[in-house]
């Protein structure tokens, strides 16, 4: 699904990723943990195609394609989804319309017929209900006036609608209370599938109690310094990131 080899990336002349390697196979859930400033969010943004990052060396292959050559909208249509840490507000653009346009652009890429208004509304209502999202929000402007938790759940709703192949969750747990966390995690778990992979970026082990990863990677200063199974997350929680740095 995704192979990252020896990736070196800088932002405004400063090296952020310093030789990162990662392989994610179809159906796997990988978690990346790390302290602030270790380069986790840079990796997420880079995979989604955000401008402003300079790839000095290394390569990223996604489903056999050179990911770095694709425009962000093409990556999205090809199944790369990023759940934003700070979702953006789009005043005056209704969530319903936004998401329908979005889904139909993804469907067009997959040579599927666009979904009509009624079919789409049914789908949206059903998925929103599963995430305990107030149906009124669907008619409101995208993220405008949404609470922090609503914004995060909205990201998961979008993921549930777009059904990506590679979903990257960037600190989706930050700012969520325990109930919201459960709802979000169950939304993610429902989407687990043989042909769908997840990259879960988080600062805390807490989220991984609900979304059980196949692999946990620890990132430090732009590199993955340790990889292991889900038990690595518990170890980290107990010993702190300092333990990795020292060892």
């Amino acid at each position: 699904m995704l192979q990252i080899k020896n990736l070196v990336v800088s932002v405004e002349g400063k090296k952020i990723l310093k030789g990162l390697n990662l392989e994610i196979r179809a159906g796997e859930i990988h978690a990346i943990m790390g302290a602030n400033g270790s380069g986790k969010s840079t990796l997420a943004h880079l995979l989604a195609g955000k401008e402003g990052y300079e790839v000095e060396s290394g390569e990223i292959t996604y489903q056999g394609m050179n990911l770095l050559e694709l425009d962000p909208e093409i990556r999205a249509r090809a199944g790369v989804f990023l759940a934003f840490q700070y979702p953006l507000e789009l005043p005056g653009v209704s969530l319903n319309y936004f998401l329908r346009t979005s889904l139909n652009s993804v469907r067009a890429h997959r040579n599927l017929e666009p979904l009509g208004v009624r079919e789409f509304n049914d789908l949206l209502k059903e998925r929103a209900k599963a995430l305990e999202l107030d149906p009124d929000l669907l008619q409101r402007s995208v993220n405008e006036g949404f609470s922090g938790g609503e914004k995060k759940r909205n990201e998961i709703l979008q993921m549930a609608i777009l059904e990506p192949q590679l979903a990257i969750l960037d600190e989706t747990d930050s700012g969520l209370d325990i109930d919201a966390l459960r709802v979000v995690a169950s939304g993610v778990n429902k989407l687990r599938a043989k042909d769908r992979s997840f990259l879960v970026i988080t600062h805390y082990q807490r989220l991984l109690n609900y979304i059980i990863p196949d692999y946990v990677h620890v990132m430090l200063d732009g590199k993955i310094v340790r990889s292991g199974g889900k038990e690595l997350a518990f170890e980290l929680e107990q010993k702190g990131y300092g333990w990795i740095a020292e060892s």
Partner: protein
Amino acid sequence: MQENSDIIGEVTSQDYKYGFETLIESDCAPVGLNEEIIALISERKQEPAFLLDFRIKAFRTWKNLTEPSWAFVKYPPIDYQAISYYSAPKNHKPLNSLEEVDPEILKTYERLGIPLNEQKVLAGVAVDAVFDSVSVYTTFKETLAKAGVIFCPFSEAAREHPELIKRYLGSVVPYSDNFFAALNSAVFTDGSFCYVPRGVRCPLELSTYFRINAKNTGQFERTLIIADEGSYVSYMEGCTAPKRDENQLHAAVVELVALEKAQIKYSTIQNWYPGDKDGKGGIYNFVTKRGLCAGPDSKISWTQVETGSAITWKYPSCILKGDRSVGEFYSVAITNHKQQADTGTKMIHIGKDTKSTIVSKGISAGEGQNSYRGLVKILKSATNARNFSQCDSMLIGDNCGTHTFPYIETKNPTATVEHEASTSKIGEDQLFYCNQRGLSTEDAVSMIVHGFCKEVLGELPMEFVLEARKLLEVSLEGSVG
């Protein structure tokens, strides 16, 4: 972030697609402005004597006026003696049917997407088309005549309904009003006239398309709409021009009169040639538009989508004289490349319980400069007058500007005046968010801009919403960069 700037640039730099020229012979007056030229215009139009008199008075007043300089726009001095003030397609004679219209002109209108034919019946639109200075054809005269509605070229109205023209011309915008209104009053060549009789709801949307075609000509049209007691009319104008390297002047005057309980809805989609990317060429759009709510419970509503012109100087206004009369102004103005717009409205409250609403959306991209200028004036007599103003600006890119100049004068303590303003910027992060959901940058900009303008577009007649949406997209193509 360099790459992102390029994207914004690409999205807002698309070409003007109405920039073609129609090759037809035209009958053009020599350049220059003097009383002989004015007499020539009046004679060509076979006008009654009072009109020539009006023109000459206006011309003498104009000579003593100075061009206004308070607007937030910059342009080199205009040589008013270098303009031809009359241009008409040759062999222009009164037309009885569409077959008699020069096929070249019809082709032009087709390319503009104005089917001057029965198709418009379905849409319920009656069209008058003004080509350079002369009205070419007015469709659906009969349907309108049955309802008693007069909708015809201004020059025809001057000949056939002189009593109405004499009574109302200059009653809302006197020839001495301002420099450009005086110039227009002296040299106006054609335009549309509409009279809706008492109690009649006009059965069709009325529409006029203005097209400047000939070189070195100015277009000075005059529009006069009178809605008699208890009547209703919705009128829509659209405008385009060919691409030219030199600037062309457009100085129109529009007067609206709404009598007791009458309603006028006036919509504009202005798409004059804006000049090229470097600011070469384009129309100077210096227009005076004003409506008088003369009777109690009358209502005048202006809606404008301004995407064209090198410079726009325009303030559609309402004089709320009748008690409980209502004035509305809904505006979207876009400036891209080197376009400049100074636009807004004046709401003059005279009657009791009068109400006005102003919703202005300014969008600036490229190196565009966009100013909102508005006056809300509440006179002593206007007890319980209310105004609500909302002025929002949106910036696309880092090299454009937006400015708001609201003026409020209240002479009556019972008045309620509210003003809200906001400025936002289409951010790279917003665009990335949309890209990440599979939307192209063009679609993302268009979606955000439409969201921003939603309230105003919703005021347009249904038939024109689609046209306006398309125009917004085209005007902003190449703006993200």
